[in-house]
């Protein structure tokens, strides 16, 4: 135990003496992430607002066949403009988001009070045409309802007869949960920071120390190799938790100051932050032990670093799987690394309660995996090759 403490103190002292690396390691993420998130949030919001509230210009081919409809669209803040020569190509070339086509037989059907066809041309693979298309369609539906109601009234029929069932929607999601949806990428950032935040420190104190050939005298001391390794892991965990703490504080401050936007009212109380820290602690342990294991098994720092790009993808996998086939929260999920963190972080941000049993499974699985990786890494620390380099 004394050795663990001695090694940890030395590694931290060594690291904090390297001012520039330390500053970059500790402060980069806390400064960058909020800027990134708030910037993205603000952009998305302002874009949605302009698309929803600004005057929408829609080319209408055959506008002269439906003057009444055109007049109605103008009242809905949709300005009808002249159509391009070839509407289909215009959409494909993304010159317009949406184009209305009023066919030749529209006036005829209109006069005979038959359903008259109006075609909405758009490209469903384009994200930014979604809002304009919705606006045009909702305007068309409203127009259709209005006209049909008047036709019924003219014929002396109650328009309500045309409606057998009225469906009403009541959204029961909590306000926090709705905001949480906007935060679906936040778990990834947090998990990644926890998982690989101390990566270069871990690689440096095992693979780097080996490359600098200072591991040889260190391992020739009577201290147990497990203890030396644990000291190094502990130092990296302390650093990892410290940097997470700073990241969470920066989130807290920026969300509080953000004022409006999709992030307003996200649960950033100190209790929630403490819970997030507790959720991320096993991730820090797993990341550190895994990297120690890798560092102890490779020949050089360079080789260890080449694992990083693969490791960075690991936390995305559960998010992607959930995106493709969303499943309800179930207990087993709390035992799967990355997925568990993802679910638990979302629950905390949505201000839901994580049940004691879920905590138990979560911490048990996380710390268990950490212990397993520790055991494997400890075995590698006993290899003859580790101490000898060059």
């Amino acid at each position: 135990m004394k050795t663990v403490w001695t090694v940890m103190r030395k590694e931290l002292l060594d690291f904090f003496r390297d001012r520039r690396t330390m500053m970059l390691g500790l402060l980069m993420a806390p400064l960058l992430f909020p800027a990134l998130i708030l910037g993205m949030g603000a952009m998305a919001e302002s874009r949605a607002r302009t698309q929803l509230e600004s005057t929408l210009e829609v080319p209408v081919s055959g506008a002269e066949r439906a003057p009444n409809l055109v007049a109605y669209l103008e009242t809905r803040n949709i300005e009808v403009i002249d159509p391009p020569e070839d509407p289909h190509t215009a959409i494909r070339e993304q010159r317009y988001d949406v184009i209305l086509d009023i066919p030749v037989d529209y006036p005829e059907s209109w006069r005979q009070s038959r359903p008259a066809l109006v075609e909405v041309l758009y490209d469903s693979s384009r994200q930014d045409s979604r809002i304009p298309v919705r606006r045009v369609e909702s305007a068309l539906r409203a127009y259709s309802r209005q006209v049909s109601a008047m036709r019924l009234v003219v014929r002396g029929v109650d328009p309500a007869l045309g409606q057998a069932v009225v469906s009403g929607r009541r959204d029961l999601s909590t306000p926090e949960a709705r905001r949480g949806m906007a935060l679906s990428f936040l778990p990834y950032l947090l998990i990644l920071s926890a998982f690989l935040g101390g990566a270069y420190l871990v690689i440096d104190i095992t693979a780097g120390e080996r490359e600098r050939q200072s591991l040889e005298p260190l391992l020739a001391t009577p201290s147990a190799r497990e203890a030396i390794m644990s000291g190094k892991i502990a130092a990296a965990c302390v650093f990892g938790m410290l940097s997470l703490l700073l990241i969470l504080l920066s989130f807290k401050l920026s969300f509080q100051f953000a004022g409006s936007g999709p992030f307003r009212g996200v649960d950033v109380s100190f209790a929630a932050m403490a819970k997030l820290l507790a959720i991320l602690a096993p991730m820090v342990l797993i990341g550190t032990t895994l990297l120690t294991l890798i560092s102890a098994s490779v020949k050089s720092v360079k080789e260890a670093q080449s694992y990083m790009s693969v490791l960075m993808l690991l936390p995305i996998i559960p998010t992607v799987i959930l995106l493709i086939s969303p499943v309800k929260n179930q207990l087993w999920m709390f035992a799967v690394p990355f997925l568990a963190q993802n679910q638990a972080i979302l629950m905390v941000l949505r201000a839901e309660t994580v049940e004691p049993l879920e905590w138990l499974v979560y911490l048990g699985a996380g710390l268990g995996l950490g212990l397993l990786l520790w055991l494997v890494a400890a075995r590698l620390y006993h290899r003859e090759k580790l101490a000898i380099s060059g």
Partner: protein
Amino acid sequence: MIQVENLHKTFKARTGLVRAVDGVSFEAPDGRITGLLGPNGAGKTTTLRMLYTLMRPEQGRVLVDGHDVVSDAGRVRRSLGVLPDARGVYKRLTARENIAYFGRLHGLDEATVEQRTAQLVEALQMEDFIDRQTEGFSQGQRTKTAIARALVHDPSNVILDEPTNGLDVMTTRGLREFLKTLKAQGRCVILSSHIMQEVGLLCDHIVIIAKGKVMAQGSAEQLRRTSGEDNLEDAFVRLIGSDEGLAA
């Protein structure tokens, strides 16, 4: 006291197995300086690594004060002071912190660490740079720091891999005197070198190693006599049977 019996060690290389150490035996008694002399790549460092427990001998055994280095590694390490080939001094720690770190890893308390450091600083003349971070140290300063670090726990056996490598004349002379005081204190000192004069001047017992085998051993005087050469360098060349890897 270190006894080495019939050590073997092979490495896998792309060209096949390399016999780095092939049947090395010798004895290094307390109060003596034993020198391993051999050209570069002769197997000196590998032999020493087996002595200080970082490598397992494939055959043969090493006893340090009667304890086997494989089965009783922890005990052996406590009685060994090791200066490896690569000094491995932490550059962001001061010389004093480097020494204290190893003192603590050897289980010494702070007072002992301080007291031992003070003794070693005086003996090795490290007053000028003891509280400086070791980044930018000269080769001599680095070696002294590493030696002090290796001796902080007052070991009865000292193993030094090429201790004077890269040092200037004055530092080398100072270091030689220091090694003689270690001997006078009754410690068992083993050092390796590829420099004849050095080994000739310093060592009571010389083990000549080439291609992983012991070619001859004895005092400088005995070696000169067996080879029939007056000068140790010629004796050395004759004994290893070639002049490859020699540096004066």
